[in-house]
């Protein structure tokens, strides 16, 4: 493993559509067997990156390597059909005139026929569609179509698997299990994968590593936990789940907000002075923290309403001011343990987990 070159390398790759820059000086390596998510809002260049890897686009600058072989450089590139890749498309792009088996065999034309069909049946069994091999795409459910698309790509044994928002056309209740399934198959096959998505849940569920992109560049790179606990800027912090932003200030290593004051904490370096403070909804808890754990600052909250959503309890509350003469505090929302009761109308103590609070210097 140590000796094998990266399955895919981007080196200072830039690309523009006409005069609009889409990708600017991006570099990264993809280890064999690794699953990398390109995450970002629409128009951030993540799909272009995928098309560059596939050969459907050619970079204007920089170079792209696969298994140590150069496949593209400024203005030139190996054609898609000559690259060791496979691609899964957002709308699956199954060929409507071919049945499931024929769709999968389509890409295997360079393998000798008996092996071709053996391999096709193997991957069909892997995705649990062995019985559907003679059906046509339009007779399959969305989840089944997605699995055929995955099987078709996996069958090629690509060095790099490219997936373009492959789950976005699925029902929400299907998505979780199909992602699990996909991750299992990719790991079984040991396929290095680049997956493009705008959904942070999808990225954290599937990725070994995430590249968060904005405006053609990489904002932050790391494992899923890095993004939840160590966002490098407000954009990253807000991209992973719901957040609330309050004004505050840092003086002598202490963070002051309307909710109270507490030390910024080790490992966090924030410039002294005014800051914007981003709270994850999960930062607010209504259950007293364990006494021997890290210190959790607290404040008083008047509960407005509380309802169970997605296995958590979502509670809207108003921050109760400390002094009688002060105006009402802001309305915030907490996502906390389902089993902690918070009766609407009452004023209860609320604790803050500082791990999920991120102060960023202004300007």
């Amino acid at each position, binding site marked *: 493993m140590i000796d094998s070159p990266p399955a895919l390398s981007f080196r200072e790759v830039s690309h523009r559509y006409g005069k609009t820059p889409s990708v600017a000086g991006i570099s990264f390596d993809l280890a064999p067997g690794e699953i990398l998510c390109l995450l970002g809002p629409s128009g951030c260049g993540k799909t272009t990156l995928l098309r560059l890897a596939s050969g*459907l686009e050619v970079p204007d600058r920089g170079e792209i390597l696969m298994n140590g072989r*150069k496949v593209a450089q400024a203005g*030139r590139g190996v054609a*898609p*059909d000559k690259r060791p890749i496979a*691609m899964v498309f957002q709308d699956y792009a199954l060929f409507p005139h071919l049945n499931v088996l024929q769709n999968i065999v389509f*890409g295997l034309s360079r393998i000798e026929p008996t092996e071709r069909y053996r391999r096709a049946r193997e991957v069909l069994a892997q995705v649990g569609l062995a019985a559907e091999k003679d059906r046509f795409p339009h007779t399959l459910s969305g989840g089944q179509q997605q699995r055929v698309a995955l099987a078709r790509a996996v069958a090629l044994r690509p060095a790099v698997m490219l997936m373009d928002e492959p789950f976005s056309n699925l029902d929400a209740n299907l998505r979780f299990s199909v992602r699990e399934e996909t991750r299992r198959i990719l790991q079984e096959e040991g396929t290095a994968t680049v997956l493009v998505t705008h959904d942070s849940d999808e990225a954290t569920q599937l990725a070994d590593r995430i590249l968060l992109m904005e405006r053609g560049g990489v904002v932050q790179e790391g494992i899923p936990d890095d993004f939840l606990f160590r966002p490098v800027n407000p954009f990253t912090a807000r991209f992973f789940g719901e957040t609330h932003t309050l004004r505050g200030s840092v003086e002598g290593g202490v963070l002051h907000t309307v909710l109270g004051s507490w030390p910024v904490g080790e490992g966090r370096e924030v410039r002294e002075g005014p800051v914007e403070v981003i709270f994850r909804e999960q930062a607010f808890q209504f259950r007293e923290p364990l006494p021997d754990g890290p210190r959790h600052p607290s404040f008083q909250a008047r509960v407005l309403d509380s309802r169970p959503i997605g296995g958590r309890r979502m509670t809207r509350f108003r921050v109760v001011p400390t002094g009688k003469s002060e105006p009402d505090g802001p309305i915030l929302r907490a996502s906390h343990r389902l089993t902690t009761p918070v009766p609407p109308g009452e004023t209860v103590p609320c604790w803050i987990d500082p791990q999920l609070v991120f102060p960023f210097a202004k300007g």
Partner: protein
Amino acid sequence: MATLPAGAETEPADPSLWSEDLREPRGLRRKGRSWLFVAAAAVSLFVASPILVIVASPLFEAGGSTWQHLRETVLGTYVTNSVLLALGAGTGAGLLGVSTAWFTAVYRFPGRSWVDWLLLLPLAMPTYLVAYAYTDFLVFDGPVQTWLRSVTGLGAGELWFPPIRSLGGAIVLFSLVLYPYVYLLCRASFLEQSVCVLDASRTLGMSRTRSFWRVALPMARPALAGGIALVAMESLADFGAVDYFAVDTFTTGIYRTWFGLGAPVAAAQLAAGLLGVVVLLLVLERLSRGKRRFHGTTTKRQDLPGWPLRGWRGIGALAFCLLPVLLGFGVPVGILVEASFTAGFLPSLEDSLAWTGHSLLLATVAAVLAVATSLLLAYNNRLCAGPASRGLTGMASLGYAVPGSVIAVGILLLLGGVDRLLGGATGLVSGTLFALVFAYLVRFLTLGLHAVDAGMARIQPNLDQAGRTLRSSALGVLGRVHFPLLRASSLAAALLVFVEVLKELPATLMIRPFNFDTLAVRIYQLASDERFAESAAPALLIVAAGLVPVVFLSRMMRGGRGEQ
């Protein structure tokens, strides 16, 4: 990096790593310098060459006094009549085509499954045949007027009856015969539209009729515009009917200038003027498409709603859809049958056997060639999308609006020149079957191109990319993805070309090799000699031959959802 020339600093240590594979990706949206573009350019140029000769004709030695004479006398009439004919027939056929397509696509009424394909029947009717038949039927001493006079008791001069041999008559007849072009394209378009958009429109509070105006029709606009453009071009190109009706249009003018005045250059120059109108039509059609893409955003495919029409509404819909079939096909066929028995059916048929063989041979060869060419051009249009490729397609499409006689002039001028280059002998290339098939290709390529292009536009772009990433070359994707998906469109294209070649008259009349008459030429000769009844049996043969692909097409039309 930016200061170094591209490639200079990235040459790999081992050149074998990339010297073969690393090149401009082919078949992608890069500047199209690929084999495909070169081939498309060569073919387009070849197909357009006779027309380019016509375009260049004003630069030739001036038509001189002939041209001057034309301009002072008849040119104005030619222009007015031609424009009115194209506008009138386009409007009429457009209304008939789109309304019948809508009714048969989304409503269920008694007899609908028959009407589906009955509506295609006029495709088998050449305009000149309808003109001969209706004239025979409606003229002063024809059965209709004779009967009216006997019923009303009015005398010869007292009964007013609309003259069939007039511009208005031509417009009505052309609408009735040419509407299937609009019907076919619009029906396919309605069927391709996802039922979801219609349902969405209904749930947004639109009635069925409003859904048609606000959703279905706008989505079908490229098909409608394409169909109407075809009808207009076809009307401008007609020779047989307007010649028989003595309505002076560009085509009859060109023919007369070529044969009557013996002035080929002036004829070509007259044709150059007509070309201007054609280019305008093409531009309008392209503009109407605009920058939009017309495939739906949903991939769900369901059957269309099949809104039921019961009682008198159902009968009304049936009657409405049967009317154009009756007038554009039933009545003229009846007249032909009646006339053929008057003249003796079998004797006049026996005379026609050789000509039938000639016609079928020419039509098959031309259809196959036209579809192959259309696929090449449409694929180039898709992969090397851009003004250059669009220009090529436009260039190759010009022939459809150019009357056959003009293409004949262009080809004869061109191939005559080639003959002289090859060694002086006349008739080396010109005056051969090659010249005739060449003329058909020039003339009818548009039909194939429209059908194939529309089919191509319905194939999701992602399928190309899927094919490429599944180890298929650009050519492989054409063979393994597009061609199977375009089978229906290609067959439709071949069918349209086949039928048109059977019916084609003026170019065949002028270019055919000595002693190589076709059915159409034979009929024209007989009708011109006032021997209409004798031509009826061979005319029925043309109609019958044209029916075979119509039936074939109707079968395919029923087999599910078009391109599925």
